[in-house]
């Protein structure tokens, strides 16, 4: 068997399908299945597409009739509700509207009054979700599936590959990885974990033979003003970026759960985040603001911060 790699852009970031196959034709077939699944989900949940479910929902804000969700979207909304409940309200898919005041390109810290003006539009508790009917009662409210559809797509694409007969490989969407399966000899993939202060380098490698790994960090979108880092990880209750952890990687059977857990841990902060992951019983690796590594997952630190590889 040989290793084949397919790279493309989707969901706003780099994607890779890497798999072992008998020949190029077989690998092409398996990768095509994965790519098709990812593109299907991008089309459906992108907020930049006119015809997406997300756009349809957001256009309906303020309309008391709401809209009807299809089975897949309904299940994703149920999941968002569960994550909101289990995170104590920190995982909230209504918080995307904060981007109206937090412009990470303009690198501007908004005034408290601007944030206060947005907060009334945020909060899953304001959404009326009576399966299959979804109502965003206030004009200006938005849902953003970006916080978890990427991880869900990794799971779905990996499953699609397995269904097509692939056994060994992984699907990666911007750092979040769902395994199709271990190497043909059963050896785990060695997954490089991003250095939060040198994101193209690996801080550690984590062996993974099954399941998924997802990471969240303050390096993904941020700017610094007066030595303070403002990351895209915004607390939906205060509207301000969270501080505490630099990065969190979580290993779970599903990439969706790994991603949700790593996001929630980042939002919970330096002390409550790792403790919550410990209570969940999920293996994890946390990088504190001072760069110190802590966690429960077997890993090897990369001394010279080598390249970010998956081998």
């Amino acid at each position, binding site marked *: 068997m040989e290793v084949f790699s397919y790279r493309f852009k989707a969901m706003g970031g780099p994607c890779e399908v890497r798999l072992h196959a008998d020949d190029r034709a077989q690998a092409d077939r398996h990768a095509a299945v994965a790519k098709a699944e990812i593109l299907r989900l991008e089309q459906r949940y992108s907020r930049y597409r006119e015809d997406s479910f997300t756009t349809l929902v957001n256009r309906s804000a303020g309309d008391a009739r709401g809209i009807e969700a299809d089975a897949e979207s309904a299940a994703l909304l149920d999941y968002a509700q569960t994550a909101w409940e289990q995170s*104590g309200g920190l995982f909230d898919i209504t918080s995307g509207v904060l981007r109206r005041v937090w412009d990470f390109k303009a690198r501007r810290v908004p005034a408290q009054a601007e944030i206060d003006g947005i907060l009334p539009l945020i909060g899953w508790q304001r959404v009326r979700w009576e399966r299959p009917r979804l109502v965003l009662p206030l004009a200006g409210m938005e849902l953003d599936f970006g916080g978890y559809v990427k991880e869900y797509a990794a799971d779905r694409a990996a499953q699609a590959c397995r269904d097509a007969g692939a056994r060994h490989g992984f699907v990666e969407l911007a750092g979040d990885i769902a395994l199709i399966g*271990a190497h043909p000899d059963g050896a785990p993939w060695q997954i490089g974990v991003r250095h939060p202060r040198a994101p193209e380098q690996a801080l550690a490698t984590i062996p993974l033979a099954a399941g998924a790994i997802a990471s969240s960090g303050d390096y993904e979108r941020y700017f610094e003003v007066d030595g303070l880092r403002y990351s895209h990880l915004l607390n939906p209750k205060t509207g301000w970026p969270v501080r505490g952890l630099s990065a969190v990687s979580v290993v779970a059977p599903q990439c969706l*759960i790994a991603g949700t857990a790593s996001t929630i841990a980042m939002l919970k902060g330096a002390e409550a985040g790792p403790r919550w992951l410990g209570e969940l019983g999920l293996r994890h690796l946390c990088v504190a603001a001072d760069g110190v590594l802590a966690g429960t997952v077997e890993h090897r630190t990369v001394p010279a911060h080598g390249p970010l590889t998956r081998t």
Partner: protein
Amino acid sequence: MPPKKNPSVPLNQALLALTASALAIPGMSAQAQDLAGDPMPSAQRDSTLLDYRFSYYDEGHIAGSKTSSGQDSERYNVESHQFRIATRLGSKADLTADATVETMSGASPWFILPDAKGKPVQVMSGASIHDFRQALQVRANERFGAVTGSVLAGYSNERDYRGANGGLEGSWDFNNKLTTLSGGVGYTHNDLDPTEGASTRFPTRIAHADNYEVTGYAGLAQVLGGETVLQSSVSFTYQNGYLSDPYKMAYVAGNTVNDARPGNRRKLAWITRLRQNVAALDAVVHLDYRYYHDDWGITAHTAELAWYQTLPWSWALVPRVRWYSQSQADFYQPYYNAAQNNGLYSSDYRLSPFGALSESLGVYKRLGSWNLSLRYEHYSSGGAYSIRSIEVENPALVRFQVFSAGIVKTF
């Protein structure tokens, strides 16, 4: 507006809720089987697997203080070669075949005499046993969505014994694959043609006999949070036919008579297994308890603790300890001072009251697509391990050790 729960962070329930919710999304798959923690590969994950294992089972000698001759006596040993091939058949089915070839030799307990003080002493059969066993067991699984169906068939052959079995099993995943309900039925038929049966040397030994066994079980497995699985199952077995040991005898008031047990037996077993992933140590704990009761009067308890420890460089270490205790069969006696009205006689140590403790250590190493393993087990039985104190210990209670080495290749 639907009632919404107040945001809260309950322990572990959080992961259970997220998992249930994630698996409710169409097309998401559970991977709870990854929690099994088995360091060895399986056909579930790999396309084809070849497995060879050699085992040497060696019973410790029986001390002269426990034999009628006053001499130490060697006991039984078995050399066993096991081969397995497991392969996927398409994306929804797999097939496993196990072949076993064994050679057995040594002496086994024959009957028990009272010595001058009434203490039971063992008469051994002499190193007369040499046998050879071949067995083949085949299992096919097919998945139909949330339901998996299995067909089993097997055959075993020795010089003095032939057995054939068949079975059907099914399992059903529901509750977002967090719960698995399983059940099965099986049938076995055995033919016995004891060596030197009805011979001039052993005129009372039977020449031919047979028996059958019907068994059924039902089980439930539940994923509790992301790192814990609890399984519980109940099985019932009915045996009918010749269930005595044709090579054993019992001492009855100065004579020896054939081992004679009831013509049927009803057995009930209840097994509960806990699998707990210890993420902080990259280990999995297996804790098992088995309760057993049959209508011959035996009640038994088994408790087992195993620790599957993953180590760097693809090593794994599995220490395991098992404790066992049983009460005796109603009709069992080490020897009989008078004939019994029911005509039942057995002095077999396996029907006596006893307890046992076994310790084992397995070492596993993966080298590319090869998996190597070494295992050692030591087993010791006696009155000291029993729940209840035992007045008269059967002199034949066994000690043994097992060495085994295996190699697995996956494709």
